């Protein structure tokens, strides 16, 4: 035994216990709250997936095995929602990222009034999502919104219609609202990464005669790559789960054309009060997200091993 340990063990037992338990006391409120309000319902929800849980039916609650999943595999609305989720997530992330990156590059240059401009262009992120959804639904509404009339004037529409009620176009409504709302998120994270690139690299490259495009390709992009990868991958999961705009703007309609899996879960739980079926869909979504995350981890491993 080292002298240090002997002297410590001579301290009163209560005092040692108090010191050892201190970090646990600090984290106990957060721990218990998260377990009670998130982990327990998560486990409960997984069990619902195998039970017949309907709010309005007092005799429900029995174990029914894989029945929900059998129904699910033949549920056309669910299969459509799967396809829509890919479309919604892919298009939203792509446009948010491209426009967010361009905005970050524009804001990276110093100019007069940059602080004010930042506050203005980042403002959409502060708009509550339900309001963003309503606001865009009104803009698309031919009664009070300008967009259908502009599209009509440009000759794109033969008459000023609401694209949210057009089965072929409806998905673009929530996607545009989502892009508007989400550009600041990408712009802010990209801007932070841009500003951490050492400035002298650009100066050295300029002295060596590199053009603007060359500097972008060989300095900016390689430096941004890790941030881009992490932000895009995490944001993809977040947007795939993001149902607010769709619930507010179209409620999944017309004819389930804008239903994504997350909004389908909500519709089943909220409108039909079929908690068992909703939980079964949620479990499938969770499985898909897990597979996606594992693919990412694998991809990261192979990329790291290459270096």
């Amino acid at each position, binding site marked *: 035994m080292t002298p240090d340990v002997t002297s410590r063990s001579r301290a009163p037992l209560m005092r040692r216990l108090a010191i050892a338990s201190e*970090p646990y006391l*600090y984290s106990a409120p*957060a721990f218990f709250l998260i377990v009670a309000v998130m*982990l327990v319902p998560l486990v409960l929800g997984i069990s619902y997936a195998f039970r017949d849980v309907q709010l309005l039916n007092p005799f429900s609650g029995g174990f029914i095995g894989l029945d929900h999943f059998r129904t699910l595999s033949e549920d056309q609305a669910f299969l459509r929602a799967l396809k829509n989720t890919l479309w919604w997530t892919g298009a939203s992330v792509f446009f948010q990222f491209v426009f967010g990156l361009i905005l970050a590059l524009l804001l990276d240059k110093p100019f007069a009034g940059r602080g004010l401009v930042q506050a203005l262009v980042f403002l959409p992120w502060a*708009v509550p999502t*339900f309001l963003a959804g309503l606001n865009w639904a009104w*803009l698309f509404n031919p009664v009070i919104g300008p967009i259908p009339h502009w599209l009509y004037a440009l000759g794109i529409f033969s008459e000023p219609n609401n694209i949210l009620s057009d089965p072929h176009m409806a998905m673009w409504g929530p996607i545009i609202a989502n892009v508007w709302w989400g550009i600041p998120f990408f712009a802010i994270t990209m801007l932070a990464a841009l500003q951490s690139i050492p400035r002298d690299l650009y100066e050295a490259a300029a002295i060596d005669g590199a053009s603007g495009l060359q500097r972008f390709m060989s300095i900016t992009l390689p430096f941004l790559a890790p941030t881009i990868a992490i932000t895009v991958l995490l944001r993809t999961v977040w947007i795939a789960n993001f149902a607010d705009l769709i619930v507010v703007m179209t409620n999944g309609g017309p004819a389930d054309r804008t239903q994504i899996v997350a909004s389908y879960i909500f519709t089943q739980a909220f409108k039909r009060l079929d908690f068992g079926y909703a939980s079964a869909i949620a479990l499938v979504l969770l499985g898909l997200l897990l597979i996606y*995350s594992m693919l990412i981890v694998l991809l990261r491993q192979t990329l790291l091993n290459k270096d």
Partner: protein
Amino acid sequence: MRAKKLSLTIAHRLAILAYIVFALFPLFWLLKVAVTPNDLLYSEGVRMWPSRATLEHFEFVIAHSAFPTFFRNSVIVSGSTAIAVTIIASLAGYALSRFSFRAKYWLIALMLITQMFPLVMLVAPIFKMLTPLGLTNSLAGLVIVYTAFNAPFATFLMQSFFDGIPKDLEEAAMIDGATQFKAFRQIILPLTLPGIAATLGFVFTAAWSELLFALMLISGNDAATFPVGLLSFVSKFSVDFGQMMAAGVLALIPACLFFLLIQRYLVQGLTAGAVKG
């Protein structure tokens, strides 16, 4: 060469202008319809500003509708959530920042898991759990749920603020005989006040925007938060556009105020939970 530089500058400013217009136009339109008198709403179509502006929609919404109740409910829920989360997250963030203990990695893993799974999964089980406790249709129920949802992200955020403060400060205080908790309360917390303000702002905005759980857990008008009230108003009286948009403008005000409060910390906040929008 100078002409090229000038044209580049002009292109840069034009691009910035386009972004500003895109970002602000929907909010401008909200305000424009909110101040358009009913008789001009349909006749003037897509004019950029009505020939006659009025505040009558705002007056009606404030004096003769349930929106003040919704507004008050939302302020209570978002404010209580923000305060509760900030207290809980300061404690847990401090533990993560300053101690190494056996359960630390389990705690971090637990909080990361909660950031990865779809929260909409919890709508049904939480409703079932809260019903026998009498916490559905109550503001307290919403506060508990929102506090738990925001605690992980806020903990990481507070941890990042604590990490930025040198450890020597508490060590000096503890040599002078203070307990660690006293050092935390009297030395570290005052130094993290800007971080605490940022956390309050982020959580307030998140709670103010939450829609799906509020829709599920609240059914009456008395406990409805702003999003629930506005959506039920929209589905019931979908012709009173002026009033709806006036209510929308009112819902925007606290969100914008808190946005100004947290603007300096956006980067830290957006990367703390890494998945939090």
